[in-house]
């Protein structure tokens, strides 16, 4: 609920910033900074289990759902953020 309030008060452009602590926590890298170009090939520790943990954490944090087809199409964090914006705008 707290996150809902924070997000509605901020613009969708801040999603990437909101995701920073989530990625740092799940990938266990306190100094990690993700960009729109980040993906499992260029971020250390982003393995298949971490990928599931990232997606499930985003789903729960933002109260949205992704289909397996949507997830398979994503090439990087930027495309995930874009998809999140669409889902959040239509909630």
């Amino acid at each position: 609920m707290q996150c809902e309030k924070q997000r509605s008060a901020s613009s969708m452009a801040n999603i990437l910033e909101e995701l920073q602590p989530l990625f740092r926590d799940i990938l266990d890298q306190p100094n990690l900074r993700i960009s729109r170009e980040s993906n499992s090939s260029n971020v250390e520790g982003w393995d298949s289990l971490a990928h599931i943990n990232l997606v499930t954490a985003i789903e729960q944090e933002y109260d949205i759902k992704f289909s397996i087809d949507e997830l398979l199409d994503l090439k990087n964090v930027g495309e995930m953020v874009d998809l999140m914006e669409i889902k959040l705008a239509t909630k």
Partner: protein
Amino acid sequence: MNTYQWSDLRIGLSDGFEVQLTLDMMEAFASISGDTNPLHRDRQLAMQRGFSDTVAYGLLTSAFYSQLVGVHLPGRYALLHGISIDFVSPAYPGDTLKVSGEISYLNDAFRRIEIRANTTRHGEEVVSKAKLRVGLQIF
């Protein structure tokens, strides 16, 4: 052993069981883990440190979360992905533990569930709370 498949699962589905913590379990865990800390083996020392008996190993009491997932919820097709545990209060040999869990989240894309679980002693005092991340294998 339960054989829940993905279509059987829903948020709120719960299960649990009771188990008595024995000295044999304590000995077996000491042998497996190599943890010979006297808090778990010397009753007098444990009492001097303010406990009412030798303290059960936290990872022994939480080992029953493995049974919860692998046998009860969801059972046969479970694959444990991860677990977060908080040890809230001590348990002692001879305690009857009640281990309970409830599905709190379902992820269709990865067939992953999360279970909010806890262990209580003698049906009242919380020994530990856990969040269990479990995949469901597909055949």
